[in-house]
């Protein structure tokens, strides 16, 4: 918690797609063990920032410096909409994907992994769902399954893209507790969120985006009425 070892440092970074710049002049750093919310209006560049951090897109300008071994410790929770729910896979197999780094393309699935998997399913409340196909799950259940996969990954750095979108209150509270547990265990968590009340009550650090950084730091210092107003204004205008 008090560790201030820098994990990721962004130096005047611009990120975007083809001919559209989604984020410009981003500077700031994430420290190891921090719990950070990434917030901002629609189109503010939140998901783009995650894509930049995970190396899915390269900066158009500037530099993203990451701690050594960053990519090895990384786990990403994708937006649920990115997943093809009709894909023929069971909850068990989806969660088992999380063991990829330990099991690889050819390794067997040893007893220890089976136990780990059972435990992960229990933690997210899906113990009885292992044999169900993912197509039969509700939004909240699928999100729980993706959290279980993340538990399987046992990563030190966790990036979550809108983990509570299309999820009911009870589920999001439960999953938020998992995130807080990860934080207590010293893992680094970055999550794209919409619910500002939740951010205020659970996340010590916040990055407020609106095509640029509006605020970055302690949550109460960032989520001020002025900053929020500015963010909305920046995204509503025809800011490129």
């Amino acid at each position, binding site marked *: 918690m008090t560790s201030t070892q820098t994990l990721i440092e962004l130096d005047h970074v611009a990120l975007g797609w083809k001919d559209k710049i989604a984020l410009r002049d981003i500077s700031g750093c994430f420290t190891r063990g921090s719990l950070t919310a990434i917030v901002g209006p629609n189109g503010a560049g939140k998901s783009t920032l995650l894509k930049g951090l995970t190396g899915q897109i390269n900066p158009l300008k500037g530099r993203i410096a990451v701690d050594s071994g960053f990519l090895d410790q990384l786990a*990403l929770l994708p937006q649920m909409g990115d997943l093809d729910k009709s894909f*023929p896979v069971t909850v068990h197999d989806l969660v088992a*994907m999380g063991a990829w780094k330990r099991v690889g393309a*050819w390794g067997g699935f040893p007893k220890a992994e089976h136990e780990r998997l059972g435990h992960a399913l229990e933690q997210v409340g899906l113990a009885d769902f292992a044999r169900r196909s993912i197509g039969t799950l509700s939004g909240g259940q699928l999100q729980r399954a993706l959290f279980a996969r993340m538990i399987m*990954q046992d990563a030190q750095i966790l990036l979550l893209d809108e983990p509570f979108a299309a999820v009911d209150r009870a589920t999001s509270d439960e999953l938020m507790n998992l995130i807080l547990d990860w934080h207590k265990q010293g893992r680094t968590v970055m999550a794209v969120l919409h619910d500002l009340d939740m951010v205020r009550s659970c996340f010590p650090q916040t990055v407020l985006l609106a095509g640029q950084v509006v605020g970055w730091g302690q949550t109460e210092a960032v989520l001020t009425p002025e900053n929020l107003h500015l963010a909305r204004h920046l995204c509503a205008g025809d800011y490129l």
Partner: protein
Amino acid sequence: MMALMDVLFGPFIDFGFMKRALAGSFALAAAAGPLGVFLVLRRMSLMGDAMAHAILPGVAVGFLTAGLSLSAMAIGGMITGLVVALLAGLVARLTPQREDASFAAFYLVSLGLGVLLVSLRGSNMDLIHVLFGTVLGLDDASLLLVTGSTTITLLILALVFRPLVLECMDPIFLRTQGGRGSVVHMLFLFMLVITLVAGFQVLGTLMVVGIMMLPAASARFWVYSVGRQMLVAALLGMISAYLGLLFSYYYNVPASPAIILAAGAFYFLSITFGPQGGLLRAYSQWRARRRRMASLLEHD
């Protein structure tokens, strides 16, 4: 009883060419079905079609330079197949056009070019052979080619099965976990091309896609998991080949369309009777739901 056995198996016992046809199309179906399952899962059903046509100009150039030489046609086909796959991917990346449209454009050009090239030197008969295959005239070299390519394809499939499924389902996950998604994708293209090149000998470039896509599209109506779908697709392909050959023997019709039509018949049976979302199943579920609702409302 004996008479029935004779009707069902006689042609394959009495005639060497029928035996070879069966062996060749079994080998083809064993590789084509599983690959088709992945094409369906990746929503790239059209790609099999596109690739089958893409190999045509290469086959034709091989034919032009070396006559009916199997190795020349196979190598030519592999080269143009891979070139078209890469070019179509490039167009999709560099222009706003999506991959399915650029694939369609490239394969139509390939088809035109291929037919023109074959016609330059060959007779109409040669053209018919290239387009519709020579399943009833498979020689040793063709049999070796198709069994060899199937062996290689099944081995690679076994080796990369797990990453291939991951790459289909959640490519970003595989990438953030350090998996080499692009290598897996290239291997998949390679398997696709060698299977199609081998298959054009058997069923022809126009028909080979049928034994790849029809059993794969049928399989999802019978079983759930990817592995089982691959197995069912291969089996359905083989049964279709057997029935098609039998039909073509007794009714004296061309063999490769008969095989594809048999696979087509299985497809319609599957969408009707398949337990995994088939029409009858959906109808009975709908009726059960209505009955349940009616009984709930009765007590009001």
